[in-house]
């Protein structure tokens, strides 16, 4: 293993989460390295989805720290929106934006992010202009970057490029309600990819799909894995976990009970509960 | 979609601006009681020959009290209202005063057949005689009116008593072969104290005046009772000479009949202003008040 060279993408320390009185997560520590494909499995209600959602603060952690890009996401003062742009998420129910067509679904966030960046620079330039009025020493303006029109065009080009990779470019102008579940989920993955994320979180991506559509989604995920994308996948697809993941984690009762490489994990489980669980699902 | 929203916003903005602009002018506002002659006076009413005020915005309130309240709040400038409620308002409110000059009056006159100009002259002569003070005291018309002061009415305005001493006026049979020997009067005998039925006879101020005019002209009096709506239009047809039915003078009716001189003036409209207002202190006539209002 070349773990020494691996760079940490997300580092989770002592993460707990309570829903009211109920303790769902009871202290989870996990380092996610660059290029990791982590499969999270566990019985339903064990807290694996909650854990995943805590990583990008869809659920706020009750205590603990989530280190990403040198900042603690669990800290309320952190601008979570900036970091979420780099942490993609794929949902069980796809959650494509129903009011937008496929292309807009993919480009919405990149365009808004770029626009906001532009606006921020404009504001800073205004400040500089104001400062320049009163001081002899002229400060140079900041580079504005692309025009809004060009931002849009670039985003669309990229989106179409991504759609081509999944052979769905002809659906660019279609609305989500006209697509099959498998198509929707693949587009949802592409939507996450369009932000150039450092890591993508998959929340049971195939659970809501008809059996014949599971294959195409898993195929795409495999391709992503081969391209070296860092992925955290909550899944019930044991075969997929064994094939794609480099680490498999078993969560039960709000704790990581066992973590291992897939070969060891499935053939030689240590924990009693994991054994029990595997005997039921395999 | 975006263009659509932008267009809507632009439209709203434009309409708000336009609206604000049109309503911005410091227009003089007069409060009135809804549905009264005062409202017609300010807004203008061709039928009642009221020109109205172009420069004044009429604000019609549900009652006079609210109008006065609005004036004291500064939301309107003056109030125009019937003289009787005006008196009460002034009595109850020390911050206002009434300019006791009649701005409009309800004028009652008789409607004479347009083809009979002589008759009009004769009726006017008779009215003049009725209105002339006798020996510096009350006139004959005053005496007639006084007879009806004690009438008692039910809720619908029907007479239920107080007229035991009044004899009433008898109507002769209409004789179409002798049109020049009879004075045919059209009325609607359900408007006490001006005209109402008393048994087979007619009573009321107008009826007694009719009797007086017939006697004055040496004619036989024929009274035709009909719907109020038909009174004016019947004049000049079927031998009807004159309409005597508590008619107020209006432009519409003028097209059908010639009005005699006014024999009775009803409620009138007055101006109410704030106590400290001195604009109208020197006014003595309606024209002076209207001059000031028109130049607002």
């Amino acid at each position: 293993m070349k773990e020494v060279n691996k760079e940490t993408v997300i580092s989770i320390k002592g993460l707990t989460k309570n829903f009211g009185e109920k303790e769902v997560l009871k202290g989870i520590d996990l380092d996610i390295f660059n290029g990791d494909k982590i499969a999270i499995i566990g019985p339903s209600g064990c807290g694996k989805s909650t854990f995943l959602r805590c990583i990008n603060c869809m659920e706020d952690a009750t205590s603990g720290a989530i280190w990403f890009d040198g900042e603690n996401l669990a800290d309320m003062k952190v601008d979570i929106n900036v970091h979420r742009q780099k942490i993609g998420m794929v949902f069980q129910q796809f959650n494509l934006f129903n009011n937008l067509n496929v292309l807009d679904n993919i480009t919405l966030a990149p365009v808004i992010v770029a626009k906001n960046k532009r606006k921020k620079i404009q504001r800073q330039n205004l400040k500089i202009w104001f400062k320049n009025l009163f001081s002899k020493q002229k400060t140079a303006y900041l580079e504005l970057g692309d025009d809004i029109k060009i931002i849009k065009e670039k985003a669309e080009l990229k989106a179409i490029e991504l759609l081509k990779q999944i052979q769905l470019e002809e659906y660019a102008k279609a609305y989500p309600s006209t697509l099959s579940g498998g198509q929707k989920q693949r587009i949802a993955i592409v939507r996450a990819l369009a932000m150039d994320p450092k890591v993508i979180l998959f929340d049971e991506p195939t659970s809501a799909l008809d059996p014949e559509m599971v294959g195409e989604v898993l195929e795409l995920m495999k391709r992503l894995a081969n391209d070296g994308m860092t992925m955290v996948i909550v899944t019930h697809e044991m075969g997929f976990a064994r094939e794609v993941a480099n680490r498999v984690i078993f969560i039960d009762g709000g704790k990581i009970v066992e973590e291992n490489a897939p070969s060891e994990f499935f053939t030689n489980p240590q924990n009693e509960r994991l054994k029990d669980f595997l005997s039921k699902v395999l | 979609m975006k263009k659509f929203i932008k267009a809507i916003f632009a439209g709203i903005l434009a309409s708000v601006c336009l609206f604000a602009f049109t309503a911005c002018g410091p227009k003089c506002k007069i409060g009135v009681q809804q549905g009264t002659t005062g409202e017609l006076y300010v807004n203008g009413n061709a039928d009642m020959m009221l020109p109205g005020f172009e420069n004044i915005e009429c604000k019609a309130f549900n009652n006079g009290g609210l109008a006065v309240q609005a004036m004291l709040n500064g939301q309107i400038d003056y109030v125009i209202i019937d003289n009787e409620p005006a008196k009460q308002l002034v009595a109850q409110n020390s911050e206002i005063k009434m300019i006791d000059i009649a701005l409009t009056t309800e004028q009652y006159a008789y409607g004479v057949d347009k083809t009979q100009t002589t008759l009009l002259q004769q009726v006017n002569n008779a009215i003049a005689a009725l209105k002339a003070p006798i020996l510096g005291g009350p006139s004959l018309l005053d005496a007639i009116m006084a007879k009806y002061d004690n009438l008692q009415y039910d809720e619908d305005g029907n007479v239920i008593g107080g007229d035991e001493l009044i004899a009433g006026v008898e109507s002769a049979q209409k004789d179409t072969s002798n049109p020049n020997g009879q004075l045919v009067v059209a009325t609607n005998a359900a408007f006490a104290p001006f005209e109402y039925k008393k048994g087979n006879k007619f009573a009321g101020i107008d009826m007694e005046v009719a009797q007086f005019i017939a006697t004055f002209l040496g004619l036989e009096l024929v009274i035709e009772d009909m719907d109020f709506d038909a009174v004016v239009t019947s004049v000049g047809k079927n031998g009807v000479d004159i309409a005597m039915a508590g008619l107020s003078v209006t432009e519409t009716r003028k097209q059908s009949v010639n009005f005699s001189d006014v024999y009775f003036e009803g409620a009138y409209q007055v101006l109410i202003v704030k106590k400290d207002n001195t604009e109208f202190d020197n006014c003595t006539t309606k024209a002076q008040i209207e001059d000031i209002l028109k130049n607002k």
Partner: protein
Amino acid sequence: MKAWNVFYKQFITYNGYKTVLNGLLTTVEIAVLGLIIGILIGTIIAVVKVMPKYKILPKILEKVCDVYVAFFRGTPMVVQLLIGYFVLMPALNIMLDGVYVAIIIFGLNSGAYVSEIMRSGIQSVDAGQLEAGRAVGLSFWTAMLKIVIPQSIKNILPTLGNEFIVLIKETSIVSFIAVTDVTKAFRAIGDANYEYIIPYLTLALVYLVIVLLITFLIRLMERRLKRSERSK
């Protein structure tokens, strides 16, 4: 027949139609501007109500909104108009014309009702939509504006149309604060001759036509929105 003649004369010969047209304009103006204010206020209240409430500010805002909604839903519109015109304006020393007072009060009032319409509309949109929006890094407000609210409009629009119809009809009370709306205009025509049958029947017809027109427009818009859901 005579009643008709009197009406015709008052309406055409004596320019009654001008008052009516002005009144109609006032009625529509109050209802439209009132609804616009109502939508703005209603949206804000609705979003405040569905906002995540970790911090103290949204909690306070929600309380304020609750009081606001309770007041405007709990008192008759006439009372609000009268308070606005005869109590509030003098107390604040603002001399607004009755029309403005009416627009403001109608806006505030419909805001309370629209907020409920909006809230249920927003809540009818799958929570996953907002979540997905947040997950790609949009702020709560951007996600609301770009994703949730556009989708809720489809549910909101018909009810909002009903609210507009209610507003149009409710404006008939503005003569309480001396505003000449279409009702007052027709009433004035009746007052001029004490002949009310035709003016009031015509008035009813005018309202009916407006309401039917609005209903038609809403249907049209609904159909368009439905179409945009399907592929183009």
